[in-house]
């Protein structure tokens, strides 16, 4: 198959992370994936990505700064001609460390913040991190780097969207990404405790609309989560179409969760070129284009816009990765999404933090769960 030009490389440098967010999309078995690519291997990936037409690289993880060679990786990506973007929790880098990354060619930063206040933020992160994040945000702006604040939304923080927007303004963020929890990895484990109610979403949408009227900054990116929308999201802009993900073990995936679908065979940059992994791997080609689509997608005029939705979600909910995303109202299994919404109502289950630690349902303390 003729592979399209990828524009974006997601470089998952490591799954190590000091945070234990209960909605982490890393694999539940993240400990089974050691960092398999050394500095040189990553730099080769960056060069090969640029040659394929990639313009953006997001250095992410896990926490990318858990790697001691991050400055060299930033330099390698920038020298390859990629617009180099750091996705970080902001708790481990110093001001000096950040200045070093900027000098190495870093162009922009996305900082995760869990909530508008310290207590609930630290509760969902599983460690005290909030104050350090605020300090980090200030360093980003001092360095003149554009700042995106990313806040993953769920039942426990949706009521504070107004305050989250105010925080983004205080921190002088250029963009605020209000990202609805994607139910992969640990988030799927916690789905019943994270899914919001329709009322919460409506309230949040009003708060966003009001904030957009008030000021142009920050730009607020926010869409209705697909468990509540009529149509699925154009996941990753289409499978193997715009974005490639290189996981810590060297596997090349169409999205960070694709390895959760069993039976798909992906390439690995440890033994193959990035170009081979992108264009030839059977897993990468499995859902490219629309030949794989079942009805109602196959004859749906919207298939070129939403690409049939999310393959990982289709697999998780129906057991068939080639099924129409059940988030779509037209899916014969839309009942599964409706049931998940019903199950989540009134669920007071505690969150299971990444790594298997149970958090208190409310408040800030955590305890280990055997």
């Amino acid at each position, binding site marked *: 198959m003729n592979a399209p030009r990828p*524009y974006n490389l997601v470089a998952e440098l490591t799954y190590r992370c000091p945070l234990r967010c209960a909605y982490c999309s890393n694999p539940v078995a993240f400990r089974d994936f050691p960092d398999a690519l050394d500095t040189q291997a990553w730099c080769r990936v960056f060069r090969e990505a640029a040659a394929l037409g990639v*313009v*953006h690289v*997001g250095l992410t993880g896990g926490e990318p700064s858990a790697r001691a060679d991050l400055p060299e990786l930033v330099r390698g990506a920038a020298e390859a001609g990629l*617009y180099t*973007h750091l996705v970080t929790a902001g708790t481990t880098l110093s001001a000096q460390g950040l200045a070093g990354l900027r000098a190495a060619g870093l*162009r*922009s930063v*996305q900082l995760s913040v869990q909530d508008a206040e310290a207590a609930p933020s630290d509760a969902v992160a599983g460690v005290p991190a909030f104050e350090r994040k605020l300090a980090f945000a200030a360093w980003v702006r001092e360095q*003149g780097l*554009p700042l*995106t604040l990313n806040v993953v939304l769920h039942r426990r923080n949706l009521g504070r969207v107004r305050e989250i927007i105010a925080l983004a303004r205080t921190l002088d963020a*250029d*963009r605020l990404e209000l990202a609805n929890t994607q139910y992969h990895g640990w988030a799927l484990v916690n789905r019943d405790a994270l899914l919001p109610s329709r009322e919460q979403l409506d309230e949040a949408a009003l708060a966003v609309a009001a904030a957009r*009227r008030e000021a142009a900054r920050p*730009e607020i990116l926010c869409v209705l989560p697909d468990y509540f929308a009529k149509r699925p999201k154009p996941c990753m802009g289409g499978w193997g179409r715009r974005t490639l993900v290189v996981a810590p073990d060297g596997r090349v995936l169409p999205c960070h969760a694709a390895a959760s679908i069993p039976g798909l065979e992906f390439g690995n940059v440890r033994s193959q070129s990035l170009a081979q992994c992108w264009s030839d791997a059977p897993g990468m080609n499995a859902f490219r284009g629309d030949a794989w689509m079942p009805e109602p997608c196959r004859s749906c005029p919207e298939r070129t816009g939403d690409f049939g939705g999310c393959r990982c979600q289709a697999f998780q909910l129906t057991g068939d990765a080639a099924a129409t995303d059940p988030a779509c109202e037209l899916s014969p299994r839309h009942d599964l999404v409706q049931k998940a919404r019903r199950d989540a109502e009134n669920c007071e289950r505690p969150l299971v933090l990444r790594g298997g630690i149970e958090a208190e349902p409310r408040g800030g303390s955590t305890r280990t769960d055997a």
Partner: protein
Amino acid sequence: MSASPSAFEARLRRIGEERYHHRHPFNLRMHAGTLTREEIQTWVRNRYYYQTRIPIKDGLILAKAADPAFRRGWVRRIRDHDGDEKGSGGLELWLSLADAVGLDRGEVERLENVLPGVRATCDDYVRFVESHDLLESVASSLTELFAGDIMQTRIDAFERHYPWVDTAGLRYFQSRTQQAPRDAAEGLRYVLEHSRTAQDQDRCAAALERKCEILWRLLDAIEAAHAHPRLSPHAQLRHEAGEVLVVLPERAVKPSASGCEILDLCDGERSAVEIAEELRRRHPEVSGLVNDVHEFLASMRKLGVLGPAASPR
């Protein structure tokens, strides 16, 4: 439960306090005397489009009203704007203002050079009234509650800061200092009387907010026309096989060839109006080009391709 009429009125007034365009940076600069002659002219030319939509909007409101007493009162607004004969009324007074600021009144009257953003937001207002009921339509007109004050501020500012504007041109503002409070009182009475439920009150508040937003966007569009756009410092231009890709944080934009020609002129020196003028000079055969340029610049601002504009000179 619905709020008492006085609490509801206070709520409506608070909306004006917070959202009426008396707080818009363009108005603040107008009243502080720092607008250029070109900016004043752009405002007069474009605001005329808004003036022309008002009688149309009031006609739509009349068509919703079954009560003769209401219509008798409201029809006065159309007369105020259109006059009882040619050469009288608020629209005519606005054209005198156009004369006074050195515009060609024929050009203004033909609505040829109305900015697309201004046209869109004014049309949005007419559509709003078209598609909402009488109560919400009347509520949307309540920005008049705040208009009386701004008119006096404006007269003072023009007399003090813009002596090159013939004071004969200010008669529109003078007439509105009388008309706006009277119209507003009438509208307010209607809204207070007919908002029986909390839902009615919410609908009216939302209508007034929407109207404030419409006025605000009108000035945004005028302000943008005089901004001096330049590429965002975070943008990286990549030239690939005859195409240009603008790479930004977490976004890439591929402008068309004509888009690239416009972006090339975004040097922080030229204003949006000057850029549009330059393109019209280069491509006299293309119709609607000026509109296209302003729309393109607005979309590029929104995407972050154009950075924080250099402050207007």
